[in-house]
C-alpha cells in the first residue's frame, strides 16, 4: 500500500493549527514522493484527546496534535507543564522550563513509542464566572466545570472546599446556562469560540496555568521514514512549532479584546487578593506532587524555575 500519514486533532478545521499541520504534510509528501497520502482529521472527528492517543496506539492514526490532557495518557509526567496552578508567571518561564526538561521528556515519549515533533501552546487558563469574583474564597460558593477524566484534580478540589462538577466539554454551555456550574476554567480563545463568555461574563485576570501541547507521531511511523525524510520532517516541524507558539499567543490577546467589546468584564485582583491566590497555590503543590504530577518531575520543574528566577536576579 501507499505510505500514509494520518494525523488527528481537536483543533477546528481551517484554524491556525490545522493550517500548520497541512504545511507540515506538504513537506512530508514532497520528501516522501510517490503516492504518499497525508490526512488530517480536525474538529475531533477521530475522537477526543484520550481517544486520539488510543487510536495512535492501535495503529489507526500515526500522529496527533494534543494538549496535555491527551499527552498525559501517553506520559503522565507531562502534567507538570499544565496542571500546576500559578507556577509560571509568563511565557518566558514556560519556555525556559520546557526547554530544560525537553530532552528528558522527549526520551520518555520515545520509550513509550512516540516521537515529539513540535511543542506548542494555546494560551493561559483563566476563570470565567457568572458572578464577579476576586478572591479564592469567592469561588467556594460556586460550582466548577472539570473534565470527567481528571479524577485526582477533583479529589484535590473537593478536599479544599471547592465543588467540581465533572462534565464533558460539550455540556459546558447548557450547564452554565442552567446553573449546574458557574465557573469555567478556560483559555480566552476557547471562551470566545464557544461563547462561554456570554453566560459567564466575568474573567479573573490571573494566569492560572498555561495550556501546553505537542505534535507527536508514533515511533513506528517515524522509523518507517528514511533519514532524508526524517530530516525534512524535523525541519518543517521546527517551523510549525515557532509559528504555532507566536501566533497562538497573539490570538489570545485578540480574543480578550474581542470579548471585552461584547461585554466581558475583566476583574483584576488587588495585591492583597493576589497574595491569597499565591497562598492557595502553595497549599495545592504538596497535594499535586506525587498524585497529578510524579514527584521527581515536580521537583525538577521547581528547581529549573528557581534557577531561572535567580539568573534574572529576582
Amino acid at each position, binding site marked *: 500500500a501507499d505510505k500514509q500519514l494520518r494525523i488527528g486533532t481537536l483543533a477546528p478545521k481551517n484554524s491556525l493549527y490545522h493550517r500548520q499541520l497541512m504545511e507540515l504534510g506538504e513537506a512530508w509528501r514532497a520528501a516522501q514522493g510517490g503516492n504518499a497520502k497525508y*490526512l488530517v482529521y480536525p474538529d475531533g472527528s*477521530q475522537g477526543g484527546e484520550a481517544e486520539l492517543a*488510543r487510536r495512535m496506539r*492501535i495503529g489507526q492514526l500515526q500522529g496527533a496534535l494534543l494538549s496535555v490532557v491527551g499527552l498525559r495518557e501517553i506520559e503522565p509526567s507531562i502534567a507538570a507543564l499544565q496542571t500546576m496552578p500559578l507556577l509560571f508567571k509568563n511565557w518566558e518561564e514556560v519556555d525556559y522550563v520546557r526547554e530544560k526538561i525537553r530532552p528528558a521528556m522527549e526520551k520518555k515519549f520515545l520509550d513509550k513509542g512516540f516521537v515529539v515533533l513540535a511543542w506548542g501552546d494555546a494560551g493561559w487558563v483563566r476563570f470565567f464566572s457568572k458572578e464577579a469574583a476576586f478572591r479564592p474564597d469567592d469561588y467556594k460558593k460556586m460550582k466548577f466545570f472539570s473534565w470527567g477524566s481528571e479524577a485526582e484534580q*477533583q479529589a484535590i478540589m473537593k478536599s479544599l472546599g471547592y465543588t467540581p*462538577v465533572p462534565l*464533558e466539554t460539550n455540556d459546558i454551555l447548557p450547564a452554565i*446556562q*442552567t446553573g*449546574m456550574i458557574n465557573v469555567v476554567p478556560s483559555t480566552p480563545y476557547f471562551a470566545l469560540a464557544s461563547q462561554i463568555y456570554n453566560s459567564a461574563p466575568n474573567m479573573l485576570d490571573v494566569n492560572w496555568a498555561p495550556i501546553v501541547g505537542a505534535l507527536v507521531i508514533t515511533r513506528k511511523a517515524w522509523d518507517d521514514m528514511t533519514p532524508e525524510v526524517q530530516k525534512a520532517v524535523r525541519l518543517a516541524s521546527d517551523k510549525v512549532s515557532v509559528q504555532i507558539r507566536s501566533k497562538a499567543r497573539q490570538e489570545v490577546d485578540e480574543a480578550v479584546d474581542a470579548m471585552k467589546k461584547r461585554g466581558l468584564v475583566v476583574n483584576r485582583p488587588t495585591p492583597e487578593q493576589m497574595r491569597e491566590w499565591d497562598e492557595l497555590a502553595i497549599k495545592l503543590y504538596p497535594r499535586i506532587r506525587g498524585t497529578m504530577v510524579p514527584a521527581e518531575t515536580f521537583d525538577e520543574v521547581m528547581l529549573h524555575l528557581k534557577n531561572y528566577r535567580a539568573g534574572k536576579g529576582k
Partner: protein
Amino acid sequence: MLTNIRSRLHSLWRFDEVLSSSALLLMTIIPLLEILLRPLLGKGIDNAPVLVQHLGLVLAMFGAVAAERNGHLTSLGSSLDNVGNKRFHTADQVFAKGSAAIICGILALASWRFVASEMEAAHDLAYGIPVWWIQATMPLGFLLLGTKLAARSFSSIVSKVAWGIALPACGFLLAAEFDGSAIMLWPAVLWLIAVLFAGAPIFAVLGGFALALFWQDGLPLASIPLSHYQITVNPSLPALPLFTLAGLIFARTGAAQRLGAVFVALFGGGVTGTVVAAAILCSFFTAFTGGSGVTILALGGLLLPLLRNAGFPEQRSISLVTSASALGVLLAPSVPLIMYAIIARVPINSMFLAGLIPAFVMVAFLLIFGGYLKRGGLETTGNVQAAHFDAGKAWAAIWTAKWEILAPFVAIGSLVSGLATPTESAALTAAYAILTQTFAHRELSLKVFAGSLSDCAQIIGGVMLILGMALGLTNFLVDAGIPDAAIEWVQSVIPNKFVFLLVLSIFLLAAGALMEIYAAIVVLVPLLLPVALSYGIDPIHFGIIFLAAMEMGFLCPPAGMNIYFASAMFGKPIRYVAASVLPALFAIFLGTLAIAWLPVIATGLPDFFAGKSPW
C-alpha cells in the same frame, strides 16, 4: 440430588444476567450517592462518573450475552421463516448464526488487540482496578456470544460443543493471521447481505461490514472495538439504561391503568375525548418505553375496549393505538432523543426541551389528518356516552396516579434546573420509579424488580452492541472522508434549503422503513448532520426532524416494529394492520414537514430557556 446440581448449573449458566443486572443496580446507586455527598464536600465515591460509565460496558457486554439466550438480539426479522420447508429453515439458521459466530470470533481478536494496546499504558479506574480489566469484558463477551450463537442452531451436545468452539475460533485465527493486510471487499459484502437476510443479529452484520471496510484498506481491526468502547464509556450513555429501567418498571406495575384512567377522566368518555386521551396517553407512555413497541403491549389491552365502547370502529381503533404509540419518541426522556444527543454531541436537556412542542404538534397532526376525529363511520350500536366532564372523578383519578404523573417532572425538572447531570437525573428517575411502585403502590415485588433489571440489561445490551458496531462503521466513513464528499455532492444537486428538507423527509421515511431506529440514528446522523449543517440547519432542529421522520418508520414494513407488535397483540394479520395505519403515516409525514419547515416549533423552547429570542 440431580435436580439440585442441574438447578445450580442453571444459575451458573445465568451468570451473565447476574453480572449485567448488578452493574445496572450499581449504576443507579452510585450517582445517587454522589448527589447526596456533593453538598457535604470531602470525599464521595472515587472517580464516580467514570466508574458508572465503565459499568455501562459490563452491562452492555453481558446484557447482550443474556439477550442472545432469550432471543432478544435484534435481527432483520423472520423474513425467510415462511419460505421453504423445515430442512431449509434449519440450514438458514445454521448459516445465519454460524456466520455471526465467525464474526464474533474476529471481533474477539480485534478487541483483544485493543485491550493489549491498553495494557501497555495501564491506568487505574478507581480503587486500584485497572481500566483494562473492564475493557477485557469485550473479547470475553464476543467469545461467549460467538460460542452461544454457534451452539444455538445444533441440537446434540457433541455438535453444540464442537461447533461452539470451532466457529468463533475460526474467526479468531483468521483475523490473527490477516489483520493489517488488505483483503477484497466485495466477497465479504455479498456474504454479509446473505447473512443479513438469513436472519443473523444486526450487530453482527454491522460489525461485519465495519470489519470488511477497515480490512480492505489494511487498517487495524482494533479500530472497531475502540469505537465500541468509546461509546459505552460516553458520559451521557448511562442515561439510556437508567431511563429504560424506569420505563420498564412503570410498564410492569399498575401505572398504565392509573394513567389511562386520568386521561379518560380528563377528556371525557365521549368518542372525541377517548380518542384524544388515547393518543396523548400512548405518546406519554412511549416517551418512557422508547418506542420499542412496549406501549402497544402495555396499553393495547386497555385502550382497545375503551375506544370500542365509545363507538369507534375496530380497524380505526387498532390504527390509532398502533400509530399513536410511535409518537412519544420526541417526548422526554425517550431513549432515541438521548441517543441523538449523544451522537450529535448536543446537550441532552436542549433536546428534551426541543422535543416537547413537536411531540404535541405530531399528536395534533395525527388526530386531524389521520381522520380520527371524523364523525362518519362511527358505530352507533356502541355504548356511546354523553361527553361530559366530571371534576370529582377526574380529581380522584389524578390523585391515584399522582406518582406516575410526577415522574416526567422528576426526569426533566432535575435536568433542566441544573440540579443533576444527565446520568444523575436518570438514576433519580429510576430510583423514583422503584421507590414509588414499591412503597406507595406496593406493586413492585422483588421478583418483578429483578426481572426488570435483567430485561433492561438485555434490551440495552443489544442496543449498545448495535450502537458500538455502527460507530465502528461511522468511524470508517469519517476515516475515508465520506461526510465531506456527501456535503459536496448534495449541495451540487440540491441548491435550496426547503427542497433539501423535503428530500430529507422522504429519504428518512424510506430509511425508517428499512432500518431499526437505533441503527438509523447511529449510521445516518453522522452522515446527514454535516450536510444539514452546511444548509444552515440547527443541529437541535435537525435532530427533531430526524426523530419525527423515524416515527413514520415504526409504521412502515419491513422494519416497522409497531405493525408486528400490533399484529401480535390484537391477533390481526400484518396486512390488515399495515393498511389501517396508512392515513396515520400520511399525517405523520405532513407533521414532519411542518416541523422541518418551521424551525421555531423545535428551537423556540430551548432558545427561550437559553435567554435567546427565537426571532
